[in-house]
């Protein structure tokens, strides 16, 4: 039984992992800093913790999808991220792809009703 539960968890994790980047990108039209993004995503039902998101934001910046800047004006220095133009283009394409995929999946999963 434990093995079955483990397998299920692993498969769910795979599913979640596939959508993580898209969900992160979707929230970065405007400037956001790491923790606010964590809270926003959690509120909207995307399970993510800071130790995953912060490195992910760095990676996306490295790939050119995001740009960042430090705000040292407050007592707490914060790193703000936002989509680049390239990020916007990629996000738009991904969104389109997602639309097509969900349509296909809906048909596949609910055709028997």
């Amino acid at each position, binding site marked *: 039984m434990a093995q079955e539960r483990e397998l299920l968890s692993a498969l769910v994790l795979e599913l979640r992992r596939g959508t993580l980047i898209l969900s992160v990108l979707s929230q970065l039209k405007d400037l956001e800093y790491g*923790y606010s993004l964590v809270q926003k995503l959690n509120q909207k039902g995307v399970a993510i913790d*800071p130790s995953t998101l912060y490195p992910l934001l*760095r*990676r996306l910046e490295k790939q050119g999808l995001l740009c960042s800047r430090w705000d040292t004006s407050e007592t*707490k220095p914060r790193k703000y991220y936002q989509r680049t133009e390239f990020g916007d283009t990629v996000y738009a394409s991904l969104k389109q792809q997602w639309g097509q995929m969900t349509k296909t999946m809906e048909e596949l999963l609910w055709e028997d009703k």
Partner: protein
Amino acid sequence: MDGQHYMERYIQEVVRRLPKGQRAEIALELQEMIQEMLSADGEEATVESVLLKLGPPKELAKKYRDDRRYLVSPEYFDNYLWVLRIVLLCVGLSVIFSAVVNFFLDPKQAKEAAMELLYLPSGLLAAFGAVTLLFVILERLHVKFEPSQSSPWNPSQLPPLLQKKAVISRSDTVVGLVFIVLFCMLLTFAPQVFSLYLFSDSKELTMIPVFDMEHWNVILPLILASMMIGLVDEVVKLVTGRYCGAVLAVNAVTNLCQVMLSFVVLKMIPFWNPEFFSWLRKKCDIPDLLPYITEEAFSNLFLGLIVFGTALELGTTAYKSLRYGKN
């Protein structure tokens, strides 16, 4: 104060595992992360509880790192295995050959020659390490392996179906190869092995070589040439793996060359050791046989055997190639 101390120690542990250039910024990020989590958790929050949530520094550092956690990637693995196999084979065989050759060079040093085989494990290990290191470097330098075919694969390139009888056993050819090489080694480094060993009454050993050692510098190259030609035949068989037109053609040509060379060696140059024959004639008790114990007779006999053997081999190869080789 305690909490601050914990936080600094935690951050230190994470960033020390990261590349130098990124350390300062990631440390700042981690500080932001931890402080945000602290304020978000409210009254009950302590640095310890936040750090517990974040998990061991090692794990967090892993998430920040994007370097490869392997030596050779799947992309390079096939080439790596292929090169490894060849290199290990070569190293292994050379160590063994070297020991064998040294043994034949001086049979009294048999123990020393056997000791050479002890180099085998360390030699193989060193070769393994060298090839692995080479591929680790190649991969990091993004060296691309070009595909060997100029055109992309398509089904017409598939080799024909193998009939069991058409297959040339790989182990047979390898054995043949090994024998040829060993025989050549022997002829080159220890031709005196091919001698008559006589113990006199006083337990003294005299050796009468079978071959004419005075003309050995002419005989040896010719024999070696013949052996090398035979080697080509074996290699072709090894590479194609089955009886076919190419194998038949190569077999015919090599056999023909070998017969011609044998003719030259046996009939056209001094080959036998005259001493050998005088000894034989002395020892021969049957008078009727005496006229047959001559160099010429022996040469003819050997040549006859060679021609017979060659014809037999050629015949079998031809039969198999023509019968099973064409689809």
